[in-house]
């Protein structure tokens, strides 16, 4: 498979580490200019450091419409049109529903789901005009399977699947695809927070008997962003070592 994406421009949220960083690096390897975002200045600096001449890191609060507008304006001025949006930024605030606070529900839904509404809406105008665009949303296996202690996270991640299907139907005629990638348990800071007992219990259910690597998610994202995936839209690709086959 030859992928040529030379000269395209991508925005990847939550790109300072983990899956987002791997996505940014693999897009760069395809010749894409990448703007990676983080919530802190130091995160943005880290991104600029690893991207080098292939893009830049920027501080972005995905829950703030003004912050989004500023970022997109800067991209437009410095890089031109945006071809690829990867909505990867996400947080967890786990608790049993009986103990879950309103703030923890709202924060997770806002950062993981409403942010995707905001960003997608903001980039669509340009993509519609050019009759080309790729929106790739990072969902999660638990959006399909559920996971105790994560009602908020699971609701947001399942929400992305429905959102993507609906938007995919709205804009398919304009050459824009909207898809999800649903990672299973990936070796990132988010899963490092799991206890050894939790990990062992999870491994027992993963046929591949290991955590996935961020690069394995990134490879799927790059494929969906490529010209070869132009006819795939509204789809969720699960990358989970066989943990859930849907």
């Amino acid at each position: 498979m030859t992928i040529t994406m030379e000269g395209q421009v991508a925005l990847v949220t939550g790109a300072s580490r983990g899956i987002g960083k791997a996505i940014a690096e693999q897009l760069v390897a395809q010749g894409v200019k990448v703007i990676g975002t983080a919530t802190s200045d130091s995160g943005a600096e880290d991104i600029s450091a690893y991207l080098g001449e292939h893009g830049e890191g920027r501080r972005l609060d995905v829950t703030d419409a003004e912050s989004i507008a500023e970022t997109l304006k800067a991209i437009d001025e410095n890089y031109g049109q945006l071809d690829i949006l990867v909505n990867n930024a996400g947080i967890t605030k786990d608790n049993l529903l009986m103990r879950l606070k309103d703030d923890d529900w709202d924060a997770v839904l806002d950062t993981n789901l409403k942010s995707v509404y905001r960003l997608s809406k903001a980039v669509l105008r340009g993509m519609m005009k050019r009759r080309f665009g790729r929106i790739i949303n990072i969902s999660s296996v638990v959006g399909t399977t559920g996971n105790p202690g994560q009602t908020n996270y699971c609701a947001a991640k399942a929400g992305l699947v429905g959102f993507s299907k609906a938007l995919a139907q709205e804009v398919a005629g304009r050459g824009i695809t909207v898809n999800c990638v649903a990672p299973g348990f990936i070796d990132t800071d988010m899963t490092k927070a799991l206890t050894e007992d939790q990990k062992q219990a999870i491994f027992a259910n993963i046929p591949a008997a290991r955590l996935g690597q961020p690069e394995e998610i990134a490879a799927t994202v790059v494929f969906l962003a490529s010209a070869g995936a132009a006819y795939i839209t509204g789809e969720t690709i699960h990358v989970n070592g066989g943990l859930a086959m849907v």
Partner: protein
Amino acid sequence: MSTIEERVKKIIIEQLGVKEEEVKPEASFENDLGADSLDTVELVMALEEEFETEIPDEEAEKIKTVQAAIDYVTNHAND
């Protein structure tokens, strides 16, 4: 310089891929000119750019015919 009416009609012809003679004042974008809802959104986007104005969503939803588009621009354009 073309009149507002001529410029609006030109955009409608380009955006919807229709013939000039079809673009009558009373023609409805969706019922007569074959536009779907996203086509009309794009049409409004094109009008915004041509006339360097921003059309609020609640106004945009009322622009359903050729005449409505001409009227809106006539009343709001910056030039």
